[in-house]
């Protein structure tokens, strides 16, 4: 980032809530500091630029690239051509290619003409399906997982730019100052490209996604070692405050960075209490836990994360992202996709139902997407007709619900599902639309870096009006 701004920001920006008054009172032996006013700090809530439809986002990222024709975009033509030679071009694989029919049957779900393969049992319930928008017009660029992941998450294939969640928290701040504004959940293994997918890029580090770890400590070093109690920690912080206050006092001129750093310890202390509360699912009813599939080993991981996502959004977290891998079915498509669908179907349906029942869906945009789609055809693998699909950057499928999105099918792919042909838009337009729903204007949500004002869409994009309710 621009160091000039950085320095200004250091002097005037963060943590300006604490003045030297607080410190002198501490020196007098008075205990602790009050929580800072909510309007302070880089993550303080900000007003949207344009009327917002959604306040929060839950993004369900299906890493590997789900096949559109095996999930929400039926292609009967492929069944007819199954195992016949394909002359379609595109993709990386060369040589003999053959068409692959979807192993799944299809059904209509709800009143808005959403197509679903027969593996979706819970999502197909009209109460849920009626909320869904299936968008078929998006096109990725890269055919390689990490680059495509970077593109969908940060607007740039190269990686290193701020992620969508970082831009959203930069633009809107967050509602609960005791929690991170942007939370990411992954499986045990990180997705390809790792933390670059939720990076703050050139934005200040406050906007970086905070990963809630799936096992062990939810945030690294969140808790003190077990032999140190919360009272022990409080005492240490009080002593530390006294040392720091004395030091600050010895400098005849205040330095906001030093007070901001002191405040970060108090926030840490509050977060230590708040985070375990939010992620403690034992406060949920048995019925809710069952609804999310926590009682079944196949749905438990994603179910837990979806339930956590609802709790986080409820607690004021702005942007939640869940990564779920294993969609890269180059082979054994039927087994692969049916297992993946099974693991996300019930939890996703529960999430949408739950948000709807609680009246939160209106304000919460739920997005389900991969980094790209899959090809209608495949290569032989090891000399065998392997029933799978390659990477496809010309067509994909995504679901959205709530947050100002219009239910129904938008856009279309060709008869093979090889290429988007209606309402075709690059990823940047999706990003522009997403920001728009949050009340942010991509052209105005900029940050000066490396010689120019940068934005999520890189160089501007278009709104996709068809998606808006």
């Amino acid at each position, binding site marked *: 980032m621009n160091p000039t701004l950085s320095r200004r920001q250091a002097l005037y920006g963060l943590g300006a809530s604490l003045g030297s008054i607080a410190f002198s009172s501490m020196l007098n032996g008075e205990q602790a500091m009050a929580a800072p006013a909510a309007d302070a700090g880089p993550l303080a809530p900000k007003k949207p630029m344009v009327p917002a439809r959604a306040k929060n986002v839950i993004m369900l990222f299906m890493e590997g690239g789900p096949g559109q024709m095996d999930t929400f975009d039926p292609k009967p033509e492929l069944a007819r051509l199954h195992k016949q030679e394909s002359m379609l071009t595109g993709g990386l694989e060369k040589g003999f290619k053959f068409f692959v029919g979807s192993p799944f049957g299809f059904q209509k779900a709800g009143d808005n003409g959403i197509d679903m393969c027969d593996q979706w049992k819970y999502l197909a319930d009209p109460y849920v399906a009626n909320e869904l928008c299936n968008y078929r017009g998006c096109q990725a660029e890269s055919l390689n997982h990490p680059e495509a992941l970077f593109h969908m998450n940060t607007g740039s294939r190269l990686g290193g730019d701020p992620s969508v969640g970082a831009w959203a928290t930069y633009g809107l701040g967050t509602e609960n100052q005791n929690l991170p504004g942007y939370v990411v959940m992954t499986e045990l293994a990180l997705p390809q490209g790792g933390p670059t997918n939720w990076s703050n890029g050139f934005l200040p580090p406050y906007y970086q996604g905070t990963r809630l770890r799936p096992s062990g400590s939810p945030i690294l070093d969140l808790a003190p070692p077990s032999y140190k109690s919360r009272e022990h920690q409080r005492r240490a912080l009080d002593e530390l405050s006294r040392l720091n206050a004395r030091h600050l006092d010895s400098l005849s001129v205040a330095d906001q960075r030093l007070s901001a750093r002191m405040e970060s310890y108090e926030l840490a202390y509050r977060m230590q209490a708040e985070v375990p509360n939010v992620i403690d699912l034992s406060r949920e009813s048995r019925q809710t836990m069952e609804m999310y599939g926590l009682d079944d080993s196949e749905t438990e991981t994603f179910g837990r994360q979806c339930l956590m996502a609802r709790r986080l959004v409820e607690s004021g977290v702005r942007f939640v992202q869940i990564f779920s891998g294993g969609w890269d079915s180059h082979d054994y498509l039927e087994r692969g996709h049916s297992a993946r669908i099974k693991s996300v179907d019930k939890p996703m349906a529960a999430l949408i139902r739950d948000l709807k029942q609680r009246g939160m869906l209106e304000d919460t945009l739920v997005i389900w997407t991969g980094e790209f789609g899959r090809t209608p055809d495949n290569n032989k693998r090891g000399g065998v007709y392997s029933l799978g699909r390659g990477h496809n950057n010309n067509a994909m499928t995504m679901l959205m619900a709530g947050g100002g999105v219009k239910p129904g099918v938008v856009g279309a792919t060709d008869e093979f599902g090889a290429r988007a042909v209606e309402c075709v838009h690059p990823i940047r337009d999706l990003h522009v639309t997403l920001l728009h729903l949050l009340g942010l204007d991509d052209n105005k949500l900029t940050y000066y870096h490396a010689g120019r*004002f940068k934005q999520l869409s890189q160089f501007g994009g278009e709104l996709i009006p068809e998606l808006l309710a």
Partner: protein
Amino acid sequence: MSLHSYALATCFALAVELCCLSVVAAPKTEPADQSADRHFTLRVLPLLKEKCFGCHGNDTTNIRGEYTMLSREELLQGGESGEPSIIPGNAEDSVLFQAVLWEGYEMPPKENDRLTADQIEDLRVWINAGAPWPDEATQQKFREAEWEVETNADGRLWRTSGGTSEEWTSRRYNPEEMWAFEMVAEKSELLPESVPADEAVDHFIDQRLTEADVKAAEEAKPRDLLRRATYDLTGLPPTPEEVDAFVAAWEADADQAWEHLIDRLLASPRYGERWGRHWLDVTRYADTGGMSNDYERSNMWRYRDYVIRAFNEDKPYNEFIVEQLAGDELADESVRERTGGGDQKVFQTQMKGDYTQEEAEWIIATGFLRIGPWDNAMIEADEARQIYLDDVVNITGQTFLAQTLRCCKCHDHKFDPIPTRDYYRFYSAFSTTHMAERPVPFLKEENRERFEEQKAHVERMLAFAVAEKNKLVEKQETAARKWFDEHNLPYKNEQERKNLPDEEKPPRHVGLDHVEQGQLKVREQDEWIWTRRLERFQPMAQSVYSAADIPGTAYAKKLRIKRKNDAQPPVNHILTGGALTALGEAVKPGVLSALGLPVNASQEDPYVVTDDAFGRRLQLARWIAHPENGLTTRAIVNRVWQWHFGTGLAANSNNFGAKGAKPTHPELLDYLARDFVENGWQFKQLHRKIMLSDAYRRSSTPAEAEKVSEVDPNNELLSFFPRRRLTAEEVRDGMLAITGELVHCYGGLPVMPEINMEVALQPRMIQFSLAPAYQPSATPEERNRRTVYAYHVRGQADPFTELFNQPNPNESCEIRESAAVTPQAFTMLNSDVMNDRSIALAKRLQEERNTTEAQIDRAFRLVFGRHASPAEKQQLTTYVKDMQDYHQQVKPEPVSYPTEITRSLVEEFSGRPFEYQEILPIFERYQADSKPADVSAETRALADLCLLLLNTNEFMYVE
């Protein structure tokens, strides 16, 4: 960023605009006929082209609002509304004019593209003059006449090799923004004769302070100065003994004490470790290649040690440049010369690695050209090659020339006089450069300790992978045999049966369930990974070589020298929009033309280098390292200044373009650049000049705080010394020094510090598999080396150093962040790393002092370099006592390290999870640090105190 600073960012944008305005702000009168035509040609038409034609003209298949603007007739006709867009003679009522004001229509629709007040005025003047639109020939006449004028109200022409359009080539620049492309002024023009050379720095700094009537802060206290200089030059804190000695010497003769201190620090080997790290920030050091596979680049440490040695030996910067960019070509030339042989001799030497020490050093230096993230997995070969070359062009521009060339990959630079042609000339200069791991003998300076035991570790890991793999293959082949038997066919092994039709062979992975299939893949990957890692012990360097072309494709997996007979160097073209398929004009290899610094003045085109396959880079490097290359010389002295003061004289040390920050003290920058070259391009004398100045020695408390916060809120005038937070390395290395655990070494194989164990053992995806777990080095002697010697994995940052803003090695880091974020507090209070350091420090205190009070005082001396005050002693004695009581009541759990872990992964074909075991043999012989359960309640109580001190602002910030 807060709302407040968001607003400041906007102000900054406005300020940039205002600067532009000031050049052309001459009030305009309504021009007469002839001049209205001219006004249209020179001012209005370029504006329409830039801002309007993109959507309303150029692409006839996609005209927005059915409104074309390519002619006066079309403007009069208007768009789908049917209303004329201009009314000649009446701008105010013209729809077009209202639209650019964003009244009614809002055009151009993007905030960033909106017209400036001046541009709006141009449009108004033109419409009011009747909106004339002269024919093409008339336009051309006006344009050509204007090109004769070097500088006019619109700015100055800049000679370059030429853009892709006439408009670009003939556009004008605000001379103030082009400062970096101007010749560096001579010292005699800058410094009045009356000012002695050793007062030059203060002369320029004080000049601005006087102009602004800002009083400089007083000199900092000796203890603060010592701490400042010691961290600055070595990245480590001064010891209490050094504090005492320095304060005593200072009292005797302050100036002499200060000079001696700087000389002592510059002579310390710790200096190269600290300043080498600065360089590695810019060049993006890592031990792996990043992206999908994150392959290890074994022996990349040789480049790291080369950099550290270069600083310690005070290698002239011009040599440092040439070696990093073209050291391999230097070596080739040297081989040619010393053997009298031709190409074949050079090639043979490359294959054998038969180099002198000096040649070997040069080749190691070209690790610079191998340092970016790169992998060709799932990328077409020509695109992967393009990604490499773009990266090299970009990093060379940023590192040495402070130019962000990336913009010019797709188009002529929007703001700077760099045509896309020059980008592709640079690109072409590298287009005969190929990546390779090359045989290069070890240098006598290179540390080869630990090779044997490290090799034994790699062999152990490899043997395990192979044994596990063989078990699975055996099981599969047993099943395959059975299948062949059952089908009455002769057995064929995996390779032999690969291309048989499905009916004549068993299914793939026959006999293996999804768990075993998954495991097989993992073991195969591991076998390959550990086999490659045996190369760590080979005399090999990550380097490059020059060749016209290479046979086949370059795979990140293994890069060796390959040559193609009778190959011709590629013909490079401008790639329009950066697309490989959109070939523009052909280009020759060359340099940036805007500088006016020729490669060879006698050539017809003075800015091109040889088009032989060999020697392009060397000529490019020598052009960069030319004493008159003001981008190069200003860039490096600016960086050095930044590393001392926290901000460069020009604040964007990777971008000296029009949109980068302008220098606050341009004369000082030029003076230092000239002086640097005159003094043999050597760093140590430059450090001395800067650090001996009054400016460097100022207190970090401003003299007139209120006034300064108004007049100079960013401290651009340097009326006081900027307080700074310790860097990630300084925090870690500083703590190790304070606890007495730090172990010095002379580089060599990377070491693995103990990192957060959850992260160390956390699965990390690579293509098709999981990367091996992170195993820390077995002994404290290895683990506790300086952070610069740690193993840097692109896909797995050490969470501690990452948290304290060690930069992501995928991007060149011009300046480090240092914001205080909450996760830092978690780590500083709760992590094992910190608790281990506190215990180590507590143990040291107990060994060195007997009473709590003396221990507290000793702790203050070690951590802050000062004694504890009575109030502090009182506070902390009570605290330690209370903590002793607390710790009597608690019993920490003993810590154990796993020697094996179970990993879980989703099997690709079945989408189902499977598990496998991974061994962690390091923990069989691990010498752990002292843990809470290993020490007494007293030690833990004292450790609580140590933890506090290490968490204070006083420790974390340098005055």
